[in-house]
């Protein structure tokens, strides 16, 4: 599998990268971890004339808590999230999702932001960021702006970003005192894309009542989906079995899967229910609720 010929640029500053994109327009593709783009090029499903490699730009990686939010630099690898003590202690949803993305080789190279803008509905980060209410920091020809995750995905492999844009980081709300999360992924084998996966995040108040909830779905629609009705079914309630059951059923309703080698429509929809319940139970337990 040999890609078609392409030109390669390795800018060392964001400005240089932006001007390369401006110069080459649609023909150019941004290379970050390359874990989706390179295989597509090798299959000649993608034949970009120009690659703009961001890996030589300093300061675009890292996971930190600052100014009341969690910041994930655009070049942060999945493995860096997986191994971060901060993430493991305070953001279990992110830690769990990072640990089950593909295989260690992919996790060592692939980036969180790259995965998001690739907009594969079977990607894991989309569901996680929808559950977390993340925002993307984007630099484009007209300067910097923030793009809420709910406005990112248009359809499969398509986002609301423009060809001249570069994502520089992801901003997430800081974890509350009683917060919990979990990622449940069903796959045929390690390294496979999800058959179905569910990201769940809960915030509880001092009475153990759910003050905020996020549920994101993987591989059951044209994009990663946010199960808003399921979230509503939890807010204002204690996350007991009845509430979790109602939310899981609502999450299944939100799914619109298609049949493939991984299973039928009915199977995948029911897996949303089963995995949502499992994720919510663990998220609630982690948050110190009933669970």
């Amino acid at each position, binding site marked *: *599998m*040999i890609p*078609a*010929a392409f030109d390669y640029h390795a800018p060392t500053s964001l400005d240089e990268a932006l001007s390369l994109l401006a110069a080459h327009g649609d023909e150019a593709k941004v290379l970050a971890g390359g874990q989706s783009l390179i295989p597509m090029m090798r299959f*000649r499903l993608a034949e970009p004339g120009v690659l703009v490699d961001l890996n030589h730009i300093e300061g675009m990686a890292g996971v930190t808590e600052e100014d009341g939010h969690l910041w994930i630099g655009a070049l942060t690898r999945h493995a860096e999230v997986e191994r971060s003590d901060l993430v493991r202690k305070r953001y279990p949803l992110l830690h769990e999702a990072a640990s089950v993305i593909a*295989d260690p080789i992919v996790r060592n190279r692939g980036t969180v932001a790259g995965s998001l803008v690739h907009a594969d509905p079977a990607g894991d980060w989309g569901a996680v960021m929808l559950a977390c209410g993340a925002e993307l920091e984007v630099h484009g020809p007209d300067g910097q702006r923030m793009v809420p995750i709910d406005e990112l995905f248009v359809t499969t492999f398509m986002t609301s970003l423009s060809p001249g844009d570069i994502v520089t980081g992801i901003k997430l709300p800081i974890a509350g005192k009683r917060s919990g999360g979990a990622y449940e992924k*069903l796959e*045929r*084998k*390690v*390294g*496979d*894309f999800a*058959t179905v996966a569910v990201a769940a995040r809960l915030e509880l108040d001092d009475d153990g009542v759910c003050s905020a909830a996020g549920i994101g779905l993987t591989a059951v629609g044209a994009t990663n989906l946010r199960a808003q009705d399921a979230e509503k079914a939890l807010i204002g309630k204690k996350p007991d079995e009845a509430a979790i059951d109602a939310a899981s059923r609502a999450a299944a309703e939100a799914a619109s899967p298609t049949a493939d*080698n*991984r*299973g*039928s429509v*009915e*199977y995948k929809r*029911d*897996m949303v229910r*089963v*995995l949502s319940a*499992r994720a919510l139970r663990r998220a609630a337990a982690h948050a110190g609720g009933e669970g």
Partner: protein
Amino acid sequence: MSATKAQDIGGLGHSVRRKEDARFVRGKGRYVDDVKLKGMCYLALVRSPYAHARLKGIDISAAMKVPGVLAVITGKDLEEAGLAWMPTLSHDQQMVLATGKVLFQGQEVAAVVAESRFAAADGAAAVRVDYEELPVVIDPHAALGKDAPVLREDRDEKSNHIFHWEAGDRDATDATFDASDVVVTQDMVYQRCHPAPLECCACVADWDTVNEKMTIYMTSQAPHAHRTLFALVAGLPEHKIRIISPDVGGGFGNKVPIYPGYVVSAVASLKLGRPVKWTEERSGNLQSTGFARDYHMHAELAASKDGKIRALRVKTLGDHGAFNAAAQPSKFPAGFYNICSGSYDLENAFVEVDGAYTNKAPGGIAYRCSFRVTEASYLIERTVDVLADELGMDPAELRKKNFIAPDKFPYVTPLGWTYDSGNYAGAMDRALEMVGYEDLLKEQEEKRGRGELMGIGISSFTEIVGAGPGKQCDIAGIEMFDSCEVRIHPTGKVLARIGVQTQGQGHETTFAQILAEELGIPVGDITVEHGDTDTAPYGLGTYASRSTPVAGAATAVAARKVRAKAQKIAAHLLEVDEADLEWKDYAFRVKGAPDKAKTMQDVAFAAYTNVPEGLEAGLEAVDYYDPPNMTYPFGTYICVVDIDKGTGDWKVRKFVAVDDCGTVINPMVVEGQIHGGLTEGFAISKMQLIDYDEGGNITGGNFMEYLIPTAVETPHYDTDKTVTPSPHHPIGAKGVGESPNVGSPAAFVNAVIDALSPYGVRHIDMPITSDKVWKALRDAGIQD
């Protein structure tokens, strides 16, 4: 002789470390793609995106303009050379490059040769092919329907039916069925899967324009047979063809056939007068090379009420794809499928098989399978469980009640085989003990009370390997003997060459161990070579677990021929009569005075320096061994699974494998073979499927969809053995390479079905994916 001495020799039964691993673990193996020759160019194939289409035209002009492209070869070019079609090993012919039409997705349509791999790939992408789509036939049953389009216009027969074949006595079997208390029937499909060796196919064809000799480095499991076929097909004199099969990264039957890529590379080298390398891509390997199975089986068992199995009746349809390229002995259109009476003592059996063409890749015999024995073993072991379910009998008890008793060997089956030796109950009892069967049954009972899903699956398989007696088994007319040539140097070091070809089995070690045992020379002093047709003796190659049964026998016999001559020299050295010597504890010893002895090393030096009068110098022998019978390894595998009721996912909690492959040469190598084969069986039963949609588009043609289990999914295996030597093999060995793949799928499937049997589930076709289990539970009204 002390035990230390036996350890130093490293003969039979020793876990000698594999000689070949030193180079493999250091990255010093030499595979075909490592071959780099001066002036070498590269070949890339253009493949059909359609499953069935008329070729309206091929425009190579853009490809020829790609910088670095040297030539584009199409079917038309080959037609002019009489090479557009090549014979298969199953009395059929196969297109090398498509002419007229294409018959499966991924079929080879054109080849581009260029100065670099990159230019070749760009050139291939620039070839424009004009196709007119034709109706596609994917289902083999539909292929035999009246309205099905005839796929093969080159044949005289205007149908998609390839052959009908039967074994056993139909009338007697029907009569036994009519007279039996209980009959069970089960349809099952052994799905299309693929061995997916780590190394895909590759070759470097090097036409020497001065000496007019063609050297082909190729990923071949059968280099000698391939040389002869090249001679017959291409018309080159056989002494002007040299096939070198260097290190091969797995074969599993996938590297037995000759593929278009090899032939076109040879044509390209002849045309350009330069070495041409072709390295297959993974998707090409999965989409176009020898797949395995695709057998659509209907099985019936007749039994008495108390569980005596009386007769087996089988009707099967084999999907052979676009060409009948099944790589098997020429007289066996369904391979050794009539081994399907398995380990059981039946009154009668009858099996019939039909073959059909479809718009899929050709193949059918591969994946660690001695010519359909895997399908046969799965069929009988699955159906016996169906019968156990019907009778309400314990599957272990039912099997034991029907095993062929040890005193009945040699045993002639109702389907015509003569089993050499066996002790089936012995292997099963050991497996039941290891797994703790009684405790598991109790635990299962408790769990079922709580609605939990736990299953125990048994498979007590009998294999047929070691093809084979030359009068029964031939490949393209060449009888399936095999060979070994042994030469002892003056200082007592040994060079041996064998007619089989390793693809990772460890022949360089295990064949050296056979020689070490027979010659009393330490295994480290013995080099075993193979795979070069200019140096190794003729042999039929390594597949169907035949290396040890056939070439292993030749090796022992060749060593004994050497020893016979050596005894004369030893007698001369000891100044005694030949008859006064015996070979004992790795030396020739004077009977009654064992300290008066000469080792093989002593004799070897004398063979070049001090031969007795009338004897020629040197110490070497060659043997071409034609086995009197196949060998019949067997064993019992027991699998324990737990099922997640919510997702339908099943996990193997425990797996016990007791194998009997007769005499064991290297226990570590045998265990490695068993672990590998069990993992393949696990993959087949759980996740592997080469599927096609209605348009003939392959849906398992890359590693995103065709799944290879990792260490994470792979179960832990507990292995053990019983030893029932083959009475007709010189060292009693039966071969083991395929047993675990043959025997294990039924164990995995039986375990899953056992877990679901309280809900009325009797069968699910492989691969048993989570969604199939979930559906079975849903259909039974179970929801987590």
